[in-house]
């Protein structure tokens, strides 16, 4: 099999994954979006404006931080790509600004978004304020509770936060509700999806907006590339953003899913590790489902990884061996938070702490190799949750 790394095919497929399993009402908008994005992305003016905003507003490039005391503690050389230092505190802003710019170009006065951890909601609310767009964010009621700080931030930024009470009241339900809004409002609204998920062209477009992470690493490290790159995987946008430019360069790419309370308890978010192929939120991918093909509820202490699906390009990376996928439990992630806080003075988001915890767990196997961790976000939003578990 030849591996394809560029655009998905004309049906939006990465191998057998991806596609466009969407209601007809949305299909014309998805076609329009695909054309608009393809045009914008090959328009030098759009690219220039995007990178200017990334520089002057988001603070890119984010630093590459040699985590010396963590390295010493673990006996493994660890570098951190500091997405936590991007404006609003996570990588999510890269995509939100890209899609906000596109929404403005397409003449859509309103944006909607789903959010789990609240970081994508905050990022979209920020982009909406920046570009002067109306903004509605869907968030599960469980997540509203556990990420209260981000709810306030969104409201201060002028967004309307709508509580989603269906299902488990978490990220999956928020995506479904955002899509239902979009089916009604598609003619004047752009859906700023928050990860490399959803129907084509979203997984491709979000990956392109997030590729800046990996491209910066190439510039920052030159020929001296790491041996291993690790990133947490919810939908998979921070991971794909760093993996994609670094793929097929002999680097081991490792995506970390949420093992929650343990894979064998059934309460986890390991869609690749413990799921099977199917269709969720408009694309063919791995998902957690029962024997009848009904979607199962995911679980993770981190709202951003509490999702029963994964981006279709990760399904493809898994199938082709371009990347490996492992998982880390809630408890391990909590230890990862404390470890990074004590050694480096950085409180990571619970999501990002999964990647740190994996390095800590696998330190013996990683000895002698240089490991780059994508530190996708900062942990301010999680301190209350972490406090409850100490």
């Amino acid at each position: 099999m030849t591996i394809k790394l560029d655009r998905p095919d004309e049906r939006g497929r990465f191998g057998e994954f991806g596609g466009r399993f969407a209601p007809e009402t949305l299909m014309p908008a998805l076609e329009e979006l695909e054309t608009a994005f393809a045009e914008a992305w090959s328009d030098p003016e759009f690219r220039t404006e995007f990178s200017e905003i990334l520089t002057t507003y988001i603070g890119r490039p984010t630093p590459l931080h040699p985590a010396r005391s963590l390295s010493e503690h673990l006996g493994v050389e660890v570098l951190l790509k500091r997405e936590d230092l991007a404006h609003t505190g996570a990588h999510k802003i890269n995509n939100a600004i890209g899609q906000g710019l596109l929404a403005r170009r397409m003449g859509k006065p309103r944006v909607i978004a789903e959010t789990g951890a609240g970081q994508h909601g905050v990022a979209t609310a920020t982009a909406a304020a920046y570009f002067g767009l109306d903004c509605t964010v869907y968030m599960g009621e469980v997540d509203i509770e556990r990420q209260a700080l981000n709810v306030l931030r969104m409201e201060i930024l002028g967004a309307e936060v709508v509580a989603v009470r269906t299902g488990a009241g978490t990220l999956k339900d928020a995506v479904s509700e955002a899509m239902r809004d979009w089916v009604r409002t598609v003619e004047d609204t752009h859906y700023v999806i928050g990860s490399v998920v959803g129907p084509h062209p979203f997984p491709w477009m979000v990956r392109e907006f997030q590729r800046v992470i990996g491209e910066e690493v190439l510039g920052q490290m030159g020929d001296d590339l790491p041996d291993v790159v690790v990133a947490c995987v919810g939908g998979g946008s921070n991971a794909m953003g760093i993996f994609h430019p670094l793929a097929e360069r002999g680097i081991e790419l490792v995506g970390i899913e949420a093992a929650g309370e343990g894979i064998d308890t059934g309460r986890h978010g390991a869609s690749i590790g413990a799921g099977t192929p199917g269709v969720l939120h408009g694309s063919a991918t791995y998902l957690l489902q029962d024997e009848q093909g009904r979607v199962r509820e995911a679980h993770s202490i981190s709202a951003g990884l509490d999702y029963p699906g994964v981006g279709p390009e990760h399904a493809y990376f898994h199938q082709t061996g371009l990347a490996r996928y492992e998982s880390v439990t809630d408890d391990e992630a909590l230890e990862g938070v404390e470890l990074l806080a004590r050694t480096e003075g950085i409180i990571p988001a619970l999501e990002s702490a999964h990647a740190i915890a994996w390095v800590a767990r696998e330190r013996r196997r990683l000895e002698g190799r240089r490991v780059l961790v994508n530190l996708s976000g900062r942990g301010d939003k999680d301190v209350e949750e972490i406090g409850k578990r100490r």
Partner: protein
Amino acid sequence: MGRERLSSLFARTRAEGRAVLLPYMTAGLPDPGTSLALFEAMAGAGADGFEVGIPYTDPLMDGPVIQQGSERAIEAGTSPDVALELVAAVVESTGLPVLVMTYANPILHRGVDEFVAVAAEAGADGVIVPDLPVEESGPLRRAADRHGLGVVQFVAPTSGTARIEAVAAADPCFVYAVAEMGVTGERAEAGGRLDGLVGRIRAVTDVPVVAGVGISTPSQAAAAARVADGVIVGSALVRRVLEADSPDAATSELAQAVADLAAAVR
């Protein structure tokens, strides 16, 4: 049986100069044991056929009422197999055409061909899968062809001519004209864009056109029936079942609502 039964239904009602009424009902409401009685009551009240929903955990095209109906039916034990047994019972008892409605994932999970075979075995005449647009419905259409079932394809107010032509080329048993932008649910005003939409569909194909999404009252159904060959009403009926105090109350409420709608499409 199968697709032909749908064709002859539309041939007959076109000759009678009226539209068909296809009530939507989630299988397994208010509970799997009482579900058949609801369909029998609707048949007695003038339904011409049914869209039977297999309850699903993530019904993306459905608003709050049908979501709640699906949740309740799943809790009451309505698995896809139980739903298909109900389809068989409905077909046997009422003799009316039945379309099975579900989402892409349960079909792919079971295997497209096996799903269609089981639906055909149960006596269904067609399938409706709202998240399989023409681009993705090829495998389903081929399987349905092999088993003599029809596949419904959707056209929305936003669909341009090229998409309508692609839908026509996919040879659906009928075109589902989405009367309102948005998911299923009741609306005070509905169908404002339906005339134009049905006109654009008829300019391309003469397969029957059935209007649905947002049509809930007899006057809305009557307006849709003036332009379309059929009308689907769902949320307004599911809501009556969810709100009823007892299975008996659900049955009689539903019969009354369907009788009013059946009169309206004539």
